[in-house]
């Protein structure tokens, strides 16, 4: 064993400096993914076969290729693209890169929420002469979104753990700070352990919270299930 506590306490304040960047990047890219996810869901609902096919495969492409490469693409390649290319700061690149990657996952969450709303709800809205906008705002979304909250919470935690990828393009989050410290002192052990501890300390309570939320939601929907069956002739 070759552990040095003085190194640990020396490195701690240095590494923690990056914590705000890591957290800020997490929320920024999460917000980006939430908004972009809406766009995917919207595009996929346009009743046009070729467009549908295209969107499906673009999403599949983004989802099944490494976010690290996408990050490099946006940071190194995007400025070189003739015409539309522009230089983005490492932080912005990371928001866009991680945000776009996870927006395809978030979009699936929205989709599952929307599909869980029964067909009867659409028909009832039509019978009440609601406009399309009213139907979405007053009937569909209020029922579609709440069940997705635990899943969306899960993605926030997943993205938090994906954010250190941005250290590879120079975003000075905690991993970057630890690597800097390690390179400076020729010792990575304590600094990297601090990063691991920080991630664990922040993501574990969040995960427990989401699990609690999930259980609560499940109980609520189970109750609805039972009520529905009681009304019918099945039982």
């Amino acid at each position: 064993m070759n552990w040095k506590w003085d190194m640990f306490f020396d490195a701690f304040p240095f590494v923690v400096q990056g914590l705000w960047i890591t957290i800020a990047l997490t929320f920024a890219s999460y917000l980006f993914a939430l908004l972009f996810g809406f766009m995917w869901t919207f595009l996929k609902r346009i009743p046009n076969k070729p467009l549908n096919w295209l969107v499906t495969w673009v999403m599949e492409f983004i989802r099944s290729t490494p976010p690290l490469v996408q990050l490099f693409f946006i940071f190194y390649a995007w400025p070189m693209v003739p015409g539309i290319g522009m230089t983005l700061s490492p932080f912005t690149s990371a928001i866009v890169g991680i945000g776009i990657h996870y927006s395809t996952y978030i979009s699936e969450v929205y989709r599952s929420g929307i599909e869980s709303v029964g067909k009867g709800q659409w028909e009832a809205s039509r019978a009440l002469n609601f406009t399309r906008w009213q139907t979405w705002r007053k009937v569909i979304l209020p029922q579609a979104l709440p069940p997705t909250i635990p899943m969306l919470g899960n993605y926030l935690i997943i993205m938090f753990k994906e954010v250190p990828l941005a250290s590879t393009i120079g975003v000075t989050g905690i991993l970057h700070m630890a690597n800097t410290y390690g390179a400076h002192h020729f010792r990575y052990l304590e600094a990297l352990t601090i990063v691991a501890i920080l991630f664990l300390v922040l993501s574990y309570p969040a995960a427990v919270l989401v699990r609690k939320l999930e259980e609560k939601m499940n109980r609520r929907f189970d109750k609805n299930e039972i009520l529905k069956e009681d009304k019918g002739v099945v039982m």
Partner: protein
Amino acid sequence: MIDISILDVFPVLLKGVSVTIQVLVLSAIFSYLIAFIAGFGRLSKNVLVRKFTGFYIEIFRGTSLIVQLFWFYYAIPMLFNVQVGSELMAGVLAISLNYGAYMSEIVRGSIIAVDKGQREAATALNMTRFQQMRLVILPQAVRMMLPEFGNYLIQILKATSLVSLIGMTDILYHGNMLRSTNIAMAPTIYLLILVFYFILALPLIFLTRKAEDISKKGVASS
């Protein structure tokens, strides 16, 4: 100014494919192995085993893969004054311990999801615990695991790109090398890398869809 085209980039990236596939296959095998071991561990009758596997799962799910990878590569040799061995070992170890932890939850969840009546019936037939698991529970549970296992295979493929950061010569590594000498070609290089990964992912995507079909087929409960 040296002008390079797709035809020049292609063979360079091709050199990395074998390393990527090697890491993918090894990581997948070990991930599944660890997933089953940890999944059963969580369901063990022994409290100690249950707590220990729970601890392992929370540690690896609570920290990010890239941190684990760096930890295995840079920190472990320092901690124990040993050489872990190659980059390959550090990479495969980090990826499989990480995804093994995630997939163990699927193993556990699927085993629990098998209807209670099945276990009761097996007990009524005087099967031992091991027989119940092997003959009754697992055949039904594995089928439920398949779609998620397929999804995680794609995740593992994506994760293999991280090994370029510890100096393994995979697709991304060769691409990065090429980019450092031909900055203007960055769009072509990275787009082609993405296409390479997508082509590798395609069979896995179809495999996952097939797995979804299999898991749905002939299941009585809705």
